[in-house]
């Protein structure tokens, strides 16, 4: 079975004026890029996808994850991973603790042991016991990515994921993130205002302001 994320005939209103309409299907390993200036509804869309649309908005339409309707499923039961521009590591937990926190309850002992291995794979070997605050920006971003991936999400949302990184680091982290998403065959939606991000994602690009869609 292919994994997929389907947005079916979505319209979001604010105070009875339609803010955005969308009808999209994203296959596993595909990254849909959403662009547009601030106020065009990017974060509103993300809020709807995570199930946290503020009460000032109303939405019509459905969200299917792997053919299952999750439109009314609470946020914490959706299995949709989030990656923000800030790594948002938990300061009261170590690197290892942060990752273990995200892993499913029923993870096997072996999986926990594999954390070190996974860290090594993204070039963070030996940092298990460090506190997040002591890591560099790039290291933090990679821990955040690893944390999301090891939480075994069924889809992933990226909210301006690279905007706080300097240009050199940006490309490096971007490559790792996209590679991992494809390797795990996860459907992904990325909100960004940076055109080069959208191009590097090699997926469809939607501009919310102009409603123009470019196909990959």
């Amino acid at each position: 079975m292919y994994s997929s994320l389907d947005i079916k005939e979505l319209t979001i209103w604010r105070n009875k004026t339609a803010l955005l309409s969308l009808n999209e299907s994203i296959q596993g390993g595909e990254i849909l890029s959403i662009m547009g200036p601030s106020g065009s509804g990017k974060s509103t869309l993300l809020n709807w996808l995570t199930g946290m649309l503020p009460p000032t908005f109303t939405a019509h339409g459905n969200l299917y994850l792997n053919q299952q309707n999750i439109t009314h499923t609470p946020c914490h039961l959706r299995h949709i991973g989030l990656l923000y521009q800030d790594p948002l590591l938990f300061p009261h937990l170590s690197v290892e603790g942060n990752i273990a926190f995200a892993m499913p309850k029923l993870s096997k002992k072996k999986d926990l042991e594999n954390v070190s291995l996974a860290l090594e794979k993204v070039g963070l070997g030996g940092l298990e016991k460090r506190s997040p605050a002591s890591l560099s920006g790039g290291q933090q971003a990679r821990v955040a990515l690893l944390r999301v991936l090891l939480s075994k999400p069924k889809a992933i949302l990226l909210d301006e994921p690279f905007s706080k990184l300097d240009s050199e680091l940006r490309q490096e982290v971007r490559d790792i993130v996209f590679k991992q998403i494809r390797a795990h065959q996860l459907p992904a939606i990325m909100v960004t205002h940076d055109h080069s991000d959208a191009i590097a994602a090699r997926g469809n690009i939607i501009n919310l302001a102009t409603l123009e869609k470019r196909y990959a």
Partner: protein
Amino acid sequence: MIKTHDTFTRLIKLSPTLLVALLVIPVIGGLIGVLLPAFGYLPALGMKEFSLQGFNALIQTDGFSHMVFLSASSALISTLLALTMTILILACFFNSPWLKRIQRLLGPILVIPHAAAAIAISFLITPSGFISRLFSPWLTGWELPPDWLLPHDILGVSMILGLTLKELPFLLLMALAAFAQADLGAKLRAQHKVAMSFGYCPMTAFFKVVLPNLYTYIRLPVLAVLAYASASVEIPLILGPNAPPTLSVAIINWFNDIDLTLRIKASAGAIAQLMLTATLLITWWLLEIIVKRVFYFYVTNRKRDYAGNAIMHLTRIVTVMLVASILLSLLGLVLWSFAGFWRFPAFLPDQLVLIHWQNALTNIQPALLNSLYIGFAASAIAIILVLVTLEAEQQRAYALSHLSSFIIYLPLLVPSVAFLFGLVWLQEQISSHHAYINVIFSHLLFVLPYVFLSLASSYRCFDSRFSILAASLGKSPAKVFWQVKLPMLVTPICIAFALGLAISFSQYLPTLLNGAGQINTITTEAVVLASGASRRTSSVYALIQMLLPALAFVLAWLTPKLVYKYQNKA
């Protein structure tokens, strides 16, 4: 920043030292003034030799251990309850618009003086109180009030209830103030979202991710609440047991006893109170360590949901009950203040009359003026001191030392019964006979910490680029302070001023002791009347006590608007 050496800068530099000295000297001096008689040195009674007689008398006092137990247990339980409820309310309504509404509902309670709150609660739970009338006689069959133990019950349940209800809004607002800090709030919310995206239910996510980081910010308020609860006088006096009472109330009784030799025992009691409060603070600190250890295991056990929904429903019910009981007790106060004859179990008075308000208003003027004079003086001094201290902090570009920040809270942590009696003695020693100055000074001790607490975060968050910009335009630090910072900070300054007023209005012990009993304020009158005959008069005074700080906050809300209007016109 380049150092400048004008008068303003030099004056500013001294201010942190001045502030710390202003707080340390009276507290430490006051403690010495209690320590000497505690060890038997009281020349006025012809006792000039040191002895342990006071402590012996104290320990042999009938029910002494029970007094200590009452003080300790009520303080610990009420603090735990208030903290638990704060956390549960935050966790339950973290992403809900209700959090703002609850904040708006509970906020005003923060500035209600303890005495007024205790009076309101006692009117609610007393056997002939509002709750009992609500269910009588149709459900209970009571034609006369039952012989309940509430309030003044032996175990101090009503006292614990009073303390909890009073401290809960304080902790909640302190936590919300932490969230209101720009980066912290957004970060914690985002982390909460991240945890939910990992499958944690909202409650669990709050406890495992938000709470550990939030606690750092409410830790000091929690400790202040604990210290206050262990030594407070007004609430145990109005709601607590008296056979025996809490240690703090017993100390006040001994100090005021006609048997003057009891002052030795009272001073020893004040020292015991100090040790009790210190022990409680240390106990809390140990509890924190243990909880942290145990908690760390639970945080990383990857369990996603601990009956989150059930706890959420329970929290909602308890919150509704809390808000309802607060509203009911306020309604009760208002009704009593207008009540004519009102036999039990009638739910409403037989007639509504204005005589209680009329009587009070004809007698209240001197007390009202005293409250205003003292409040304005103490708050103004506090605002000036805090502003220059914060300015000094910015000019030398490093924050106050941990010790200094701690010292600012000293008057909130050291039980006031322990040092105020000594402070009176100290003021006598330097022959400060001016009652108003003595009272304003003692109020300042309690107003300063709150004003600092309220102003510090906004002053420290002040965007330094504005002052750099102004300096680059050739403005001296003094001009930057007067012409840039103060106008931009009008709103937080007004709020801090109103808070200062509210704190000063509510002071009972410092007014009574340091004013040599010569100065009546609304609060001293209200406490005297709370022990008096008339529920009706007592309600009027409690309501006036609540209205005063409310007025102060309305002014704080209006002033910036007027200032801006004026500025825009100019």
